[in-house]
């Protein structure tokens, strides 16, 4: 019944339950506790993918996150996820996996022909082979390379899953739950510290689950389970499995990815993954070590695996990756695989040790070859036999290779820590400056035996707890034996003739390293980039050090002299979805809605994005054929009677204190000390370099109380600058600021009937007459029978106009009230377009003119820079270059042929001159069709503009090949004397 041909006894799997899954459509079975990789091996599936460049058959190489080969595509439809490592994918019922990177079936990949082209595809082939002819690159070479290389494919559909972000705090973050991590977490937790223990695996315990060692007289995996049970029961401990701590950042901040539902058939509406930001006072890196391979001829066939991985499949998963296993090692630990497998009854055909020493162990039934090596292998889609240096051929369907262990130093490098070589273990250990607050324990620190790891973890935790001021209960390290782990510096088999693979994910061979050396790319950083070594999704976890050793061999230097690469985050790949979290689509940059948004929505509004705001652009009426119809009507009706516009988006800053007026004097170019209570004044701000920054009106509501408005775009920035001025430049002033942009809903009520309209809503006895409340007056009052409000008599449109503000919660109702009260006057709501048309007709500068390049002088506002007082920007605004006689000035333009439109961005050329940059006189900043005048009008900057009124100028737009003639006029097209707004 069972197809699990390679399942053996034991392991931490639940055999009482069977999980069905498919690989390339083929039905297979596994058990809870299996990874996809262990289940595939249990079903005898050795071939799982194709190589990146040469499309050679590849199998499962490791049993962890360092896997270079076994990348598969999981799930289907929009849930499809490419490049997932089968070795860390937890099996669930109904899982579907497919292999990737082949054309045709996995067994018969048409692209495998590239393997025959390998002489042309060696190191640096991108730079050499496809350089010529140049025109071929885009059309021929690149598409071929793109389609033949690469890994899995995206679904091209929107990711249907939810991702979240979270924040955690702790005294001690323990990264890795192997023996050192568990011992440390236990010791720290017992002293009362807040501890987070994180592990990328779903089954905490690290190598204790993969080994047969004992701790305190019980099996390592039982000890791990007991310890975890104790930790999980403590309130001050958070155990996070399926959580990869992927990056170490400044000041004890770590990034971690928790895979919450990847082990389930469906997320069921819950977040699939959570990206955590962990704030730790101290951290302990106990991330263990990664085994490295030995390079020899054809060492990439399915069935050739790391020795520790083979042991893991046997001990943890109850799977034997082969029926006849050979072992090739250069160290004592490789022998442990032999003895563990033999104890489980797996047939060991041979143990080959590169060292010519006494065999460190005896393995029943195995032929032992000391001082020998593997030079070649056979088997097209899976290992069949190996050839030794002596020429002897041995049959094997699995070859377990051990080249020694590399401490997982990755996170120690994230703040530019530089690993140091340690000769006695032939590996790099953490070195240089570690991330603040980090200690390293166990195998990650080069303590490669179990007993040493436990002691190291306990000792580190004890000293960290003392450092943090926790009273440590005298805790004794758990005891275990110190197993043999002597190693040798043997990196590749020099007698091998065929290609020997180092980086199996990017297909880099020993020959490529030698070629890189010959061609002068000898520094580690050059080597990486030239050969692409270590630049795939596994970041060279198994390949970097052997490659470095071979480069050292070429140069005749030692490994530490040759150097090492350091690692950057992330430790393992992070999905884009997790980085985005909830900030997707419109939630990436949510809209700010104006208080009258609902009213506008119900009244046929077309909205426009202005910064973060969504504002009404115009309000179309039935029968209007285009936006111009609506905008022209809104302007005409406002000028004829009354219009209403939500202007809440303008920044509002409440300024109070007995020095408030003096403060305004510092930040505005013009004087505010003597502004009477109940009056509003226009104000202009400069940057300290003398360029115009922002403008608006400021109302004095009381002796020590002002309300400033800013432009919509600069609301946040002006407030920030004012706080800077208040705290850093004039800290002695008694003045306080608060932003009230969102606190008040504000509406412009403009037009000859604005007073009539407003008199219907304000409460008696407020006198709205021109004498009592003239142009530029302001007051606090109540409306609609007691609602608090503020009224300002200011005008952006040039009409007699008011702005009325009410607490924001009344904003939507207020719009309705104003429209209802305005019915008898045919009141019209107007949007940002009509607002813009009327401001151009009136000649007010806006963002197009206050563009960060223009001065008060340019804007025609030179008179606003007070001669009597200092203000921010005044000194540098007096620089000669900013005050040249031929400086540009803001003026108006109207087309000579009034049927012609003007275009913003056009440049001005004096009649008779050639249209080129040397003759450039300035540019058009804002244009509109003016329904009031019946033709296009424009504002623009032109040299000496104030002296050139009446001149006819060429308005040239070379980009669109359009030119018209226009007359230079005053920028104040509409009511230049201002009689209307004062009326």
């Amino acid at each position, binding site marked *: 019944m069972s197809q699990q041909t390679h399942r053996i006894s034991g392991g931490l799997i639940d055999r009482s339950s069977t999980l069905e899954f498919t690989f390339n459509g083929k039905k297979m079975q596994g058990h809870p506790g299996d990874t996809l990789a262990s289940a595939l091996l249990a079903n005898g599936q050795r071939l799982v993918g194709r190589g990146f460049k040469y499309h050679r058959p590849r199998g499962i190489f490791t049993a962890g996150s360092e896997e270079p080969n076994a990348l598969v595509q999981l799930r289907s439809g929009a849930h499809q996820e490419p490049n997932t490592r089968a070795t860390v994918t937890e099996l669930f019922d109904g899982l579907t996996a497919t292999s990737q990177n082949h054309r045709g079936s996995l067994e018969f990949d048409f692209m495998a022909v590239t393997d025959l082209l390998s002489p042309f595809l060696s190191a640096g082939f991108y730079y050499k082979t496809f350089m010529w002819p140049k025109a071929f690159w885009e059309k021929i070479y690149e598409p071929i390379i793109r389609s033949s290389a690469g890994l899995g494919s995206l679904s091209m559909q929107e990711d249907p899953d939810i991702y979240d972000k979270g924040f955690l705090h702790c005294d001690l973050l323990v990264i890795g739950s192997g023996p050192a991590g568990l011992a440390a977490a236990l010791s720290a937790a017992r002293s009362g510290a807040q501890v987070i223990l994180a592990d990328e695996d779903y089954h905490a315990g690290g190598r204790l689950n993969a080994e047969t060692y004992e701790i305190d007289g019980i099996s390592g995996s039982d000890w791990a389970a007991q310890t975890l049970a104790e930790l999980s029961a403590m309130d001050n401990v958070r155990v996070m499995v399926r959580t990869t701590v992927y990056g170490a*950042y*400044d*000041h*004890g*901040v770590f990034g971690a990815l928790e895979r919450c539902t990847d082990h389930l058939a469906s997320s069921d509406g819950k977040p699939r993954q959570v990206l955590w930001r962990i*704030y730790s006072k101290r951290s302990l890196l106990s991330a263990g070590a990664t085994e490295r391979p030995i390079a020899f001829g054809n060492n990439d066939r399915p069935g050739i695996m790391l020795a520790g991985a083979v042991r893991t499949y046997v001990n943890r998963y109850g799977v034997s990756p082969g029926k006849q296993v050979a072992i090739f090692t250069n160290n004592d630990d490789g022998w442990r695989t032999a003895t563990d497998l033999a104890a489980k009854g797996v047939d060991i055909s041979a143990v080959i040790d590169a060292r010519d020493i006494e065999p460190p162990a005896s393995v029943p039934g195995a032929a032992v070859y000391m001082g020998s090596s593997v030079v070649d292998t056979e088997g097209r889609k899976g290992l069949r036999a190996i050839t030794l240096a002596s020429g002897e051929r041995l049959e094997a369907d699995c070859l377990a290779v051990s080249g020694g262990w590399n401490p997982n130093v990755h996170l120690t490098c994230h*703040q530019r820590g530089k690993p140091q070589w340690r000769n006695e273990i032939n590996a790099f250990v953490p070195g240089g*400056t570690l991330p*603040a607050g980090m200690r390293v324990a166990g195998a990650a620190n080069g303590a490669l035996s179990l007993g040493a790891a436990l002691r190291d973890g306990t000792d580190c935790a004890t000293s960290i707890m003392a450092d943090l001021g926790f009273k440590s209960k005298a805790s004794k390290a758990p005891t275990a034996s110190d197993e043999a782990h002597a190693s040798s510096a043997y990196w590749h088999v020099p007698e091998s003739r065929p290609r020997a693979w180092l980086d199996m994910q990017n297909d880099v061979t020993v020959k490529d390293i030698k070629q890189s050396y010959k061609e002068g790319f000898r520094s580690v950083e050059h080597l990486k980039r030239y050969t692409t070594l270590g630049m795939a999704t596994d970041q060279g976890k198994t390949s970097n050090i052997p490659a470095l050793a071979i480069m050292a061999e070429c140069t005749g230097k030692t490994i530490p002299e040759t150097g090492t690469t350091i690692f950057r985050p992330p430790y393992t790949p992070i999905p884009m979805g997790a980085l985005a979290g909830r900030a997707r689509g419109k939630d990436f940059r949510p809209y700010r809605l104006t208080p009258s948004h609902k009213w506008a929505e119900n009244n046929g509004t077309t909205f426009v994005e202005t910064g973060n705001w969504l504002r009404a652009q115009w309000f179309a009426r039935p029968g209007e054929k285009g936006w111009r119809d609506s905008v022209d009507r809104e302007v005409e009706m406002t000028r004829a009677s009354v219009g209403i516009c939500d202007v809440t988006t303008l920044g509002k800053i409440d300024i109070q204190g007995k020095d408030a007026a003096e403060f305004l004097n510092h930040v505005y170019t013009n004087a505010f000390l003597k502004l009477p209570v109940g009056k509003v004044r226009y104000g202009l701000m400069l940057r*300290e*370099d003398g360029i115009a920054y922002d403008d608006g009106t400021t109302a004095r509501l009381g002796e020590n109380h002002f309300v400033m408005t800013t432009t919509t775009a600069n609301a946040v920035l002006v407030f*920030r600058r004012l*706080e*800077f001025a208040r*705290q*850093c*430049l*004039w*800290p*002695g*002033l008694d003045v306080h600021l608060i932003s009230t942009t969102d606190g008040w809903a504000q509406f412009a009520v403009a037009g000859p009937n604005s007073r009539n309209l407003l008199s219907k809503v304000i409460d008696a006895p407020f006198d709205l007459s021109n004498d009592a409340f003239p142009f530029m007056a302001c007051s606090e009052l109540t409306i609609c029978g007691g609602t608090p409000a503020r009224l300002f008599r200011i005008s952006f449109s040039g009409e007699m106009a008011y702005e009325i503000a009410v607490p924001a919660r009344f904003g939507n109702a207020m719009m309705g009230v104003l429209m209802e009260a305005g019915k008898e006057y045919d009141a019209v709501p107007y949007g940002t377009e009509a607002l813009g048309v009327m401001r151009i007709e009136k000649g007010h500068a806006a963002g197009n003119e206050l563009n960060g390049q223009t001065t008060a002088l340019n804007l025609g506002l030179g008179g606003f820079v007070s001669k009597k007082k*200092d203000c921010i920007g*005044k*000194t*540098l605004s*007096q*620089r000669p270059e900013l005050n040249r006689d031929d400086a540009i000035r803001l003026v108006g333009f109207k087309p000579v042929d009034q049927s012609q439109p003007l275009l913003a961005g056009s440049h001005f050329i004096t009649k008779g001159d050639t249209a080129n940059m040397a003759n450039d006189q300035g540019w058009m900043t804002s244009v509109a069709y003016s329904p009031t005048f019946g033709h296009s009008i424009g504002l623009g900057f032109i040299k000496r503009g104030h002296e050139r009124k009446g001149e006819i100028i060429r308005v040239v737009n070379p980009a669109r090949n359009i030119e018209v003639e226009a007359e230079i006029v005053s920028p104040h097209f509409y009511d230049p004397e201002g009689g209307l707004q004062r009326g």
Partner: protein
Amino acid sequence: MIINHPLLGPRDAAEFVYLGDASLMDRPDPEAENAAEQFYEYGYLRDNPAGAHQELWYHEQGDRSWLVVTRDTLTHEITGVKLARDEAKKRGRNK
């Protein structure tokens, strides 16, 4: 990064807006004889030390304090955090 706010305790740097060199607090006297030269230097010239650097951070997503933070530009180690207001007064900016 974490900035130890003098009033609020340790806060994530993401809550802050960075401005730059704390010399921006030393706005020159506009009445000085060489005010134009001084404002030019104030506006355009900055030291760029590899090591300890006094700089201005604004707690925009917090209490709106401007802070003077002493940060090592090589290691990001923060060795001092002061309220800019206090520091400005100490530098003689009492008005």
